[in-house]
């Protein structure tokens, strides 16, 4: 062994030669091969991997779409129609990309729900959680700008309404809006910069996902019990146990994805977006894509322009401080009889906001939106901080393996191979 070379354990001479000089194989083996993973994951723990796969699908389909797309107000709509009609399999690639955005949000919402329910945001995983919120914000920006690109009526008016949100800020508002537009209305410069950023941001997301995973591999994964693994008897090597479990989830996920793409590709879209953008006529009923509806409902629930905008941004920014709002030392809500009810109510509120966001902003709908908005914030700012003081959690199990197997800690020599670290 020469000086300066990594001490590789790989036998294949080519792999070994590379690994000695750049130990990527050793790293992959450590992070995805033997990586000790709590052995009690349920299927909620598939969704991180599903989100990763979806990101790659979106980048792949997006790169191929951009080869046929023209980012100009006079060409964009027709170039998208050309993709749908003339480009070989263009319809398939576009429908995957279009519905992939929805699938991405479904997967990430479940991933976030899982993190909230099982307390994955709590120490020592606060930074991991915050990086996740950053990814979500980047996803929202990317999805919004992607929706503008086909330059249909919803693209145009969605872009107009969302960019105008920034005009609510005093003093700097109009400056920001003109900066976004590159003019005095949503127009060609806006479309060009949105295309550029829509291409850029997924790679930024990819970078933050890398940090998200890097942070995860320091703290290790949380698990449905919310207690830390106490040794090798509580964990399994990531491969083949969780590569296999993730693959099962992935196959089911692809089936759902395929059903949407092949049988209801426009179910989650708006027919108005197949009308070319017209700056002189606003469609009678404009709504954002479904995944933005809860925030849209919060925006409309407030009878004040600036207040609505602040509350809307605040509804996501509050996630950043969630680890410090929820001071209860118990992670998993399985052992928090009160928090569990309040959190499930919060989830219902989120879904109610999603539903009411698509309804006209009048009558009872406004009242419903206001009640749901109030509870949305009360849960974070009042209920969680108070529960930490007043809630009496159920007794936690002694260890993962005791909870999983019922009996005492078993030897489990067969399943748990010797690992580098527990």
């Amino acid at each position, binding site marked *: 062994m020469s000086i300066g070379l990594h001490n590789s354990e790989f036998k294949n001479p080519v792999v070994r030669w590379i690994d000695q000089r750049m130990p990527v194989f050793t790293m992959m083996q450590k992070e995805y091969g033997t990586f000790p993973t709590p052995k009690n994951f349920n299927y909620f723990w598939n969704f991180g991997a599903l989100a990763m796969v979806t990101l790659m699908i979106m980048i*792949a389909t997006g790169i*191929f779409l951009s*080869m*046929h797309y023209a980012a100009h107000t006079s060409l964009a709509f027709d170039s998208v129609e*050309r993709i749908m*009609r*003339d*480009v*070989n*399999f*263009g319809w*398939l*690639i576009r429908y995957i990309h279009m519905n992939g955005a929805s699938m991405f949000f479904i997967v990430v919402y479940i991933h976030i729900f899982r993190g909230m329910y099982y307390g994955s945001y709590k120490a020592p995983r606060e930074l991991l959680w915050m990086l996740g919120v950053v990814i979500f914000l980047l996803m929202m920006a990317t999805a919004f700008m992607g929706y503008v690109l086909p330059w249909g009526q919803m693209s145009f008016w969605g872009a107009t309404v969302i960019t105008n949100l920034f005009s609510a800020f005093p003093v700097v508002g109009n400056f920001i809006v003109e900066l976004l537009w590159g003019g005095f209305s949503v127009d060609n410069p806006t479309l060009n910069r949105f295309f550029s950023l829509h291409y850029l941001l997924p790679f930024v997301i990819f970078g933050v996902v890398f940090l998200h995973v890097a942070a995860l591999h320091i703290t290790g994964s949380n698990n449905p019990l919310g207690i830390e693994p106490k040794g090798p008897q509580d964990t399994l090597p990531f491969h083949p146990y969780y590569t296999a479990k993730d693959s099962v989830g992935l196959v089911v996920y692809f089936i759902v994805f395929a059903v949407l793409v092949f049988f209801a590709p426009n179910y989650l879209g708006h027919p108005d977006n197949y009308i070319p953008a017209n700056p002189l006529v606003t469609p009678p009923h404009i709504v954002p894509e479904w995944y933005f509806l809860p925030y849209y409902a919060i925006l409309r629930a407030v009878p004040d322009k600036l207040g609505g905008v602040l509350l809307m941004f605040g509804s996501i920014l509050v996630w950043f401080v969630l680890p410090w709002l929820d001071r209860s030392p118990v992670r998993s809500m399985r052992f928090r009889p009160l928090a569990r009810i309040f959190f499930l109510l919060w989830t219902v509120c989120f879904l109610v906001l999603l539903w009411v966001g698509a309804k006209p902003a009048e009558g009872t709908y406004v009242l419903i939106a206001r009640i749901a908005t109030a509870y949305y914030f009360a849960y974070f700012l009042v209920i969680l901080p108070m529960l930490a003081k007043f809630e009496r959690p159920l007794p936690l199990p002694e260890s993962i393996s005791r909870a999983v197997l019922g009996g005492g800690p078993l030897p489990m020599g067969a399943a748990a191979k010797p690992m580098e670290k527990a």
Partner: protein
Amino acid sequence: MTDNGHAATDGAPRRDFLMLVTGAFAAVGVGAIAWPFIASLQPAKDTLALASTDVELAPIAEGQAITVMWRGKPVFVRNRTAKEIQEARAVPTNSLPDPATDQSRVQKDQWLILVGICTHLGCVPTGQRATDARGDYGGWFCPCHGSHYDTSGRIRKGPAPRNLDVPQYAFTSDTKIRIG
């Protein structure tokens, strides 16, 4: 999978079999996904729809040539003089780098239709206008690397390996052709 006859004897071949089947499914899946993506890079239907060009021959006087666009490439349409035809036919075929008779390259003697792309590295040869350099053989001359083509568009001197290509075309009337 024919090698699983001994699968019952112990667990290892059975596991090998499962690994191979899983791998085969994954490979077929990846292929099935890759196919539409690669197909999307091939010419789209609207590109293929533009793949034929109609040319009116009547305005082209004897000795004159015009250049038309077909599939994004120049096509030379030349109304040859009797002298040019005779020159092209006087050459013994077997003395040519890419042997072909003049008759095999035209449908009507006076009309020579060629893809105007040098078969060396894709430049457009000069010789369409009377003032252009036409090379040593009175046809076309490629300024990029010095290939000389004769009045039948055949390579006579220089690095080009083949004669200028004759596109697929048909006379739709006495004075009209459709290329493609």
